[in-house]
């Protein structure tokens, strides 16, 4: 059982009775709302008369601003439509290139706030024109009288539109607050994503196997096949077991340089060199007889060869002095 399931079973669709006082508050609120929304509003705001006047003034300003903005919007769209109708033969622009000064309504309204607002409108137009340019960005190539149009990937266009642009101001502010937090979380979140997606990927593999079932195959089968293939590649010399440590101290354990199963081969060539490239021992028909007691401790290099094949290089550590 998961911790989620524990919570889900206990709390999803769970029922807990609220205290009776809650209904009284709701009914009071409803009664207040029904008796008159105006009184309720004024009581909740509870503004002083002076501040109320200021508020009204502010509202009036906002209202005029809105009217101006609506007027400009209407004007630009109307102009756009007119120009568009006139230029039907050419490429149709959605009003992006029309200079705003030419519209008659705007010429009459000339206030200080207007320049600011015009900047806003211009910015708006630029963004829109960019967007249009992206959307209509098709390349036509004529080949053998056949026109081939390459359309940009729609997903790219969707992604390229800036999400923030369409977000209301309030939400933007909220997001700004979180950016630092998000930065802190980057490493954690990446980890979390990996952990989250692992089981999904395993599921995907499982599903694909369900669709295209493979022949039953155990690891033992597979490793046996691998071993066969590997052995086929090996030469007899490679298969020899050559020790890499001998301790010639006459205790009967690892006293000699003993190559295992050497009797199976007719002739095994062994040559031993010291670290300063001196030949120390050589035998064309080796019979596990090198038990060096007169050489210093250290690493020795040996060349081993079965019949006519290649030499196999190896090394052996000689360690005489026990204790």
């Amino acid at each position: 059982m998961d911790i989620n399931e524990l919570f889900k079973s206990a709390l999803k669709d769970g029922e807990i009775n609220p205290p009776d006082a809650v209904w009284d508050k709701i009914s009071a609120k409803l009664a207040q709302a029904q008796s008159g929304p105006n009184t309720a509003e004024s009581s909740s705001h509870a503004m002083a008369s002076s501040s109320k006047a200021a508020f009204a003034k502010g509202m009036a300003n906002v209202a005029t601003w809105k009217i101006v903005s609506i007027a400009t919007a209407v004007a630009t769209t109307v102009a756009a439509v007119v120009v568009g109708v006139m230029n039907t033969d050419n490429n149709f622009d959605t009003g992006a290139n029309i200079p705003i000064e030419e519209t008659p309504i705007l010429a009459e309204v000339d206030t200080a706030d207007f320049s600011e607002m015009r900047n806003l409108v211009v910015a708006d137009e630029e963004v829109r024109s960019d967007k249009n340019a992206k959307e209509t960005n098709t390349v036509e190539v004529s080949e053998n009288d056949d026109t081939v149009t390459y359309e940009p990937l729609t997903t790219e266009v969707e992604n390229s539109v800036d999400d923030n642009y369409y977000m209301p101001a309030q939400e933007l502010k909220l997001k700004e607050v979180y950016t630092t937090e998000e930065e802190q979380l980057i490493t954690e979140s990446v980890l979390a994503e990996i952990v989250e997606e692992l089981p999904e990927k395993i599921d995907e593999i499982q599903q694909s196997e369900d669709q295209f079932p493979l022949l039953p195959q155990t690891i033992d089968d597979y490793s046996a096949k691998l071993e066969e293939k590997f052995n086929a590649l090996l030469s007899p010399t490679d298969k020899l077991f050559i020790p890499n440590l001998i301790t010639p101290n006459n205790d009967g354990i690892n006293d000699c340089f003993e190559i295992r199963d050497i009797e199976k081969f007719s002739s095994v060539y062994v040559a031993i060199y010291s670290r300063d490239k001196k030949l120390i021992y050589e035998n064309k028909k080796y019979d596990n007889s090198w038990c060096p007691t007169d050489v210093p401790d250290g690493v020795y290099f040996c060349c081993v060869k079965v019949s006519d094949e290649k030499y196999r290089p190896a090394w052996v550590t000689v360690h005489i002095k026990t204790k």
Partner: protein
Amino acid sequence: MNQDIQKMIEKCIQGDANSQRALYDKYKARFYALCLRYSSNADEAQDILIEGFFKVFNSLENYRGEGEFEGWMHRIFVNHAITCIHRKRKDVLSQNNEREFDEAILVDNNDRYSSDLKGILLRYLNCLNPKERTIFNMVAIEEYTVVEVAKELNLKKTVVKTYYYRARARMRTMLEENEKELLREYNLYK
């Protein structure tokens, strides 16, 4: 059944106090439980419940009979809970005291809730910080997908995931510290 609710809704729109009371009685327990899950104490939950029901009564005219009435109400309550958290979050951020695990709340809520499984889990859920609690509620209990939650809360998908994992880990440590027997009972203790 459905027709009863339909009649009740029509009367509520006309302003009949008795049917309003009936509607409230029908759903109060279910949605109080929901509010408790989304808030950090019972008072907060009652506030959400009051405002939520007020919203429901005011926007009954907008219910077009598509889908279940309870689902529609559920949606209103979850949305309202989230806006309440947004409202609260400003204070939390300005004070810069995002708590991780508030012992005081746990002790304070001890007396208010029942001692059964539901009460115990609610107490620990209330101890999480608001963001983690909301996301844990939506993902773990109400089985929203991460994408839906991200859209709802206007956060990135990875951020939602992080909060979810954190909330789960914190819940786990809290339960392991204080409620070993309960975890053993459900074979959750490692």
